[in-house]
């Protein structure tokens, strides 16, 4: 058996995307000895792919923008299911986080008066996304990466070694969190390059592992997105919130097959691009739902006027929140008005001069030219929905990022609550910064409170973790991980995809059950050094666990809202709006309970017209007599536990 290398840290951050790096920077700035662990190389985490921008109410382009407006947009986008405290902190703190990035060297695109420029995006009332062309994620990750290096340089000057207080463990995968009693004590994993096993002993672990998209066949996500953090948290005894909400981005590439799912940024629409069906119709006008009717244009003329004079015109319907646009495209294709390769047309070529397109959307231009032989300055793109983001995630305390397990924290896409049932574009990058920092602070405060009472990892636990990881390599027979992965992806795509039906979800759960049994006997050929087949074999249980959580929650929530559309329950239900579905493990199996969502504070409630609230809230909530003894059980079974309800109350 390979040696196990041991390291001891104050804080271990799992994930080197925007959330993980920001958390690690904060933990180090608080004086904590910090490790950053990442499955990929430093600077290459999935955040690097983000294109459009980071939302923050800086008010640089339209000075009417304030955090309250951003908050309101976020809640609207999430269909009132967001954790209100998270949405509030996010809207308030995003501007500071963006300015801080600039102060660390980020170079955002500029306004005429030399400030950070901001662009329009779906669901945002004002131009709000700080951006760099269409490579904002790269700028964000590079700036944070360089900030880490800067802190290391300072440590080198002070302590003689750059890695004395902050070290990056690249291409290292955590397979298990270890506990001492009910508290976090460390994390176990393997190093790709050497095949060695590694143990991090640490009282505080921050999960920043991103999303789950690789459980779906058509996705914009990278290979890292196997839901590891969600699964690690569940196995460590933490809870997941509202896993049924999965965002399908309306515009992914549809052709050629090998690039199907790769993202076409929403900025194309923000900058004037329009959607048409095979009949040339700008169809989105037919899909403006009642709740948004008053804010969106009804004619092409009105919509086009908005780009130059937003105060006098209502917004183009192409800029509705993502769930609406994705469903509309899905319907157009299903009703036979799709493009040749099963999407719809997204056209910017007739809307902007060619040089403007290549300046504003350089990577899109590049991507279509290199991968699809399409010149977007001369012809339309073909696009269709692609699995993009998971709103569901680890249940955390808004202020500190603490999960229910002491010593465990989570930030970024892996955390839940912030985005409700649907995330607005641009709200993830700012979420990473705001809650990444808060997690770093939260972990540091936890450590200070802990003092010398450090938890310890039991040797038997370490041996067990190691045996589990080696198991696929030691089997003489067993199934091939690649084939199993494809079956999971197909199952989720077909049966728990963008439009869901009860019987299909049940079928998915049955398939997942069988797949889990088969995955338990999976075999990997070869050795421990950089062996992708083995790595995939170890990812499979995580994907299966997360897929089951999604499917179970999707079956349970008998309404349609945001990133969860039930064909058999098409309406949005005010009763369901008050409910968080919480996933946890009971004896190793996925189980769920209902828990009330914290109500909006009266001052935040006032940001909305009563008429709008009436579309979302129950009569009881509207009349202000909510909560006391209120039932949160819309269809009469399996209500939340008393305990959970009061725990939630304490928090708010």
């Amino acid at each position: 058996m390979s040696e196990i290398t041991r390291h001891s840290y104050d804080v271990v951050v799992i994930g080197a995307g925007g959330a993980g790096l920001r958390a690690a920077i904060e933990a180090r700035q608080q004086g904590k000895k910090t490790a950053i662990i990442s499955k990929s190389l430093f600077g290459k985490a999935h955040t690097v792919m983000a294109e459009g921008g980071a939302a923050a109410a800086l008010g640089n382009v339209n000075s009417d923008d304030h955090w309250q407006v951003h908050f309101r947009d976020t809640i609207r986008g999430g269909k009132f299911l967001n954790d209100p405290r998270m949405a509030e902190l996010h809207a308030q703190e995003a501007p500071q986080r963006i300015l801080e990035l600039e102060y660390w060297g980020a170079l955002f695109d500029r306004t005429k008066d030399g400030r950070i420029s901001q662009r329009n995006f779906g669901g945002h009332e004002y131009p709000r996304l700080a951006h760099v062309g269409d490579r904002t994620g790269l700028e964000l990750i590079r700036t944070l990466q360089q900030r880490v290096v800067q802190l290391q340089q300072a440590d080198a000057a002070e302590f003689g070694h750059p890695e004395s207080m902050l070290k990056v463990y690249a291409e290292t995968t955590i397979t298990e969190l270890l506990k001492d009693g009910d508290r976090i004590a460390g994390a176990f994993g393997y190093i790709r390059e050497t095949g060695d096993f590694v143990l991090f002993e640490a009282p505080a672990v921050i999960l920043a592992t991103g999303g789950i998209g690789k459980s779906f066949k058509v996705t914009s996500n990278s290979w890292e997105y196997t839901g590891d953090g969600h699964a690690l948290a569940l196995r460590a005894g933490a809870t997941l919130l509202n896993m049924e909400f999965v965002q399908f981005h309306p515009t992914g590439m549809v052709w050629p097959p090998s690039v199907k799912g790769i993202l076409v940024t929403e900025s194309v629409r923000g900058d004037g691009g329009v959607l048409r069906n095979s009949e040339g119709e700008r169809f989105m006008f037919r899909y403006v739902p009642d709740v948004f009717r008053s804010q969106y244009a009804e004619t092409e003329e009105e919509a086009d006027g908005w780009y130059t004079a937003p105060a006098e015109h209502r917004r183009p319907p192409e800029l509705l929140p993502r769930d609406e646009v994705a469903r509309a495209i899905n319907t157009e294709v299903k009703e036979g008005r799709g493009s040749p390769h099963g999407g719809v047309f997204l056209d910017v070529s007739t809307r902007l001069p060619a040089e403007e397109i290549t300046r504003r959307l350089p990577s899109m231009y590049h991507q279509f030219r290199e991968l699809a032989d399409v010149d977007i300055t001369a012809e339309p793109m073909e696009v269709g929905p692609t699995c993009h983001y998971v709103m569901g995630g680890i249940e955390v305390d808004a202020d500190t990022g603490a999960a229910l397990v002491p010593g465990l924290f989570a930030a970024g896409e892996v955390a839940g609550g912030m985005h409700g049932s649907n995330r607005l574009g641009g709200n993830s990058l700012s979420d990473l910064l705001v809650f990444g920092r808060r997690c770093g602070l939260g972990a540091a405060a936890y450590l200070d409170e802990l003092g010398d009472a450090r938890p310890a990892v039991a040797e038997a636990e370490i041996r067990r973790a190691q045996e589990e990881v080696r198991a696929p390599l030691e089997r003489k027979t067993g199934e091939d991980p690649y084939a199993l992965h494809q079956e999971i992806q197909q199952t989720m795509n077909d049966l728990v995809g963008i439009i869901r039906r009860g019987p299909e979800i049940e079928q998915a759960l049955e398939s997942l059950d069988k797949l889990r049994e088969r995955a338990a006997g999976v075999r990997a050929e070869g050795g421990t050094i950089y062996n992708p087949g083995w790595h995939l074999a170890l990812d499979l249980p995580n994907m299966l666990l997360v897929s089951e959580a999604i499917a179970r929650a999707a079956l349970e929530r008998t309404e349609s809202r945001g990133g969860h559309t039930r064909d058999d329950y098409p309406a949005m239900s005010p009763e369901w709006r008050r409910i968080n579905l919480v996933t946890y493990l009971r004896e190793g199996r996925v189980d769920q309970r209902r828990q009330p969502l914290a109500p909006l504070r009266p001052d935040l409630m006032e940001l909305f017209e009563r008429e709008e609230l009436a579309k979302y809230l129950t009569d009881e909530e509207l009349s202000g007599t909510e909560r006391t003894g209120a039932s949160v059980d819309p269809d009469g079974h399996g209500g939340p536990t008393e305990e959970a309800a009061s725990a939630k109350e304490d928090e708010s």
Partner: protein
Amino acid sequence: MTTKRTFRVWRGSGEGELVHYEVEVNEGEVVLDVLHRLQATQVPDLAVRWNCKAGKCGSCSVEINGRPRLSCMTRMSTFEPEEPITITPMRTFPVIRDLVCDVSFNYQKAREIPSFTPDPGTEPGDFRMAQADVERSQEFRKCIECFLCQNVCHVIRDHEENKEHFSGPRYLIRVTELEMHPEDTADRRTISQEEFGLGYCNITKCCTEVCPEHIKITDNGLIPLKERVADRKYDPLVWLGSKIGLRKGADTPIAPNTRKPSSAPEQ
């Protein structure tokens, strides 16, 4: 449309060899798709580094028929129908296994460069910069750190001995980027010559040719940096300053204790 193609793929680590595979290729695919098919159907443990499969992360750099390229952005249709395709790891870095290299050299070099240094009298939110003034640095910040330019540069490609004294084009344009940042106050001109080896570069432009982000590494980065270094040498004020020990206009030194970090802390 599906065809069979011949792939010759480097297998092994220190010792290794090209192994021949016959593999299916479909219309519209890129080289990385084919490597994935090899993993799924013939060689499950074939080591390949990749992440985004969208040309954005710079992980999947290899040499394809001798040319340094991103495997996720190299379409199969760019090869002749019968042309065999040879895939080897980047030559300038030690091979870990199969197509995966140890690229830690690059992270080491990144750490030596003095970071962005704003005027200490400013604070977040103070900067006002015109688009025209940030654009030059923005070009270099498009870099996805694929290290293909590092791999192709002849100064280190077959000259292990130069690695200590030469940071490579990627990190020389990082220096240029910082030098051109409107709010940066450090002066890295002297160390770019003396520590980062700008003088080794003889402007062959091989780096620019392979850059998948089409950054004009030489024309917009290395040549202007060389000019600035020359200006620095002949600037009479700076010369006088260094003679009489004035702080202002002083050279910023290489970040201390970052080269060859010793395990025993100095101090």
